[in-house]
């Protein structure tokens, strides 16, 4: 049983995207928000509702019951099958992202409970090479599907990705097919796949397991699409309408089951799991979330204006 999710060190590393200082400017509405208020709001802007991106660790801590998470396949690491070199070698880039994120790859997988409901879980790390799908992500997802099948627990995937990882070439592309055969086996056995699409969910990841969920939900404002907006604009030589490719747009067009604000995500997932036959551990049914712990250095009250 790992309690590393609660360690302040990891929490601080995950918050690297928020600049130091007590006040943070919202990228969407440009209002200044007190940092501790932002944290309490689960990194959602209290003025405009803009959902900032979360690390994989923070995502799992938000959703899972305290002490329930058991990580799996943590020791899988990428190889360099193509010997890929652009302006740097692939292994150099991997090492760089390891340093930056404290993660070894673009997904964390394991098992846990949500209000006592058992699930196999995977959370993608967009900060690691854009959450790109390579051999390790493909293998960890496939093994997670195996695990879900073995236990007959639903598989929950938190998806955040720019698509397939170029540095592993066609091997990356075919991870779309590899994960599909694993998901197909799960589907045939009647075990549910639940996908939670976070900002951004694009490319080969959108065109594979993201949209193979039996139930597909998304965070407000998340960018979700196959082609990137710039490529589309270049192709059609027109400006795209406001809201194009957002979660709300997809809901309107019939491609999502729900758009779920972050504050409601844990409860929504618990309900979805119960309704898709997740076994419920009665001892854990009243559990609190793992949570992020308190920021180490912020005062409780904002300084006087």
């Amino acid at each position, binding site marked *: 049983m790992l309690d590393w999710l609660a360690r302040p060190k990891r929490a601080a590393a995950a918050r690297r995207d928020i600049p130091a200082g007590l006040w943070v400017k919202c990228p969407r509405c440009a209002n200044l928000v007190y940092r501790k208020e932002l944290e309490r709001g689960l990194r959602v802007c209290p003025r405009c509702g803009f959902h900032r991106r979360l690390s994989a660790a923070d995502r799992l801590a938000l959703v899972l019951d305290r002490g329930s998470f058991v990580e799996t396949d943590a020791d899988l690491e990428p190889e360099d099958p*193509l010997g890929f070199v*652009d302006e740097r070698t692939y292994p150099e880039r991997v090492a760089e992202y390891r340093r930056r994120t404290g993660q070894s790859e673009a997904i964390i997988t394991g098992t846990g409970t949500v209000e006592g409901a058992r699930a196999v879980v995977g959370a993608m790390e967009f900060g690691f090479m854009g959450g790109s799908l390579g051999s390790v992500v493909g293998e960890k997802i496939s093994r997670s599907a*195996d*695990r879900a099948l073995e236990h007959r627990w639903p598989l929950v995937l938190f998806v955040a990705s720019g698509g*397939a990882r170029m540095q592993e070439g066609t091997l990356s*592309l075919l991870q779309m097919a590899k994960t599909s055969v694993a998901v197909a086996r799960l*589907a045939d056995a009647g075990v549910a796949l639940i996908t939670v699409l976070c900002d951004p969910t694009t490319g080969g990841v959108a065109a*594979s397991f993201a949209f193979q969920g039996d139930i597909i939900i998304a965070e407000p404002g998340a960018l979700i699409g196959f*082609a990137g907006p710039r490529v589309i604009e270049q192709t059609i030589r027109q400006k795209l309408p406001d809201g194009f490719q957002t979660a709300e747009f997809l809901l309107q067009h019939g491609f999502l089951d729900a758009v779920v604000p972050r504050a409601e995500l844990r409860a929504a997932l618990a309900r979805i799991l119960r309704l898709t036959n997740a076994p419920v551990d009665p001892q854990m049914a009243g559990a609190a979330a793992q949570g992020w712990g308190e920021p180490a250095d912020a005062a409780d009250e904002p300084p006087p204006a």
Partner: protein
Amino acid sequence: MDRDLAEVEREIADLRRITTTQQMNLGEQIAALEARAERLREEIARHPTAWQRVQLARHAERPRIGDYIAALTSEFLELHGDRAFGDDPAMVAGLGMIDGRPAAIVGHAKGRDTRENIARRFGMPNPEGYRKALRVMTLAERLHAPIVTLIDTAGAFPGKEAEERGQSEAIARSLLEMARLRTPIVAVITGEGGSGGALGIGLCDVLLMVEHAVYSVISPEGCAAILWRDGSRAPEAAEALRLTAHDLATFGIVDEIIPEPPGGAHRHRDDAVAAVAESVRRHLAACAGRPKESLIAARYEKYRRIGRVREGSAVVAGTTPTAGGQAV
């Protein structure tokens, strides 16, 4: 070699101009140069670089899906529509008689000229194209007919309507369903295997590639623009991506490479098409008697094996789950 060819072609153009403007007869010299250009082209096609192969794979005069269907089938019925939105001219789908037995054939449809290319969106499908293909593949399963997919696309169309109609969902669903179709699937990449747009009809039991075909996670131009921050460095990106048929055979991804005629398929279309038809027929015959359970199990293993990861001190290419689902 590219440079030599370009020089020779320039010389030919100059001589032609002189012939017209100065009314000199340079026929012999032009013929000699043209023979030289021809030999250079054949040489390039024999040992092309990755970027040269990309050019060959994209050649405007390569056979089109209609040519392959004509060679493969004694009769063909094209089917239309996804039964929900519309009919996509960038994807052809139908039933054909192959060696006296019905089969489903689906594939990307590039045009033979600019007018047809525009009408067919250059063989880049919208969601309704994938949905039509899936409908016909599912029909094949019901009829106990095998499926042949003919892949030749720069990618799924990156348009506004494509996103509105769920391009991601169409491809994702196609992959999920193709994983479970209880009938043999033989896929051939006859030109460009453009990423998810190609794989959308490419999950199969047997993957064939013609000699100069390419299969890539991203176009060399796109890769160069992102990783080298310079789209003109596409030739370097093409080498790095390992996207040729030979590269992919090395990785165990391609089951057979079908040779092209000397100079490439565009130079001897009938021969090129006949070679593909022969290979497809052979693989269909080999799949014909297989029990469905063993077919699906082998298809599962084929894809689970793909990838390379380090686990502790070992390098594994995917894993095989045991009967209980525990990863080995």
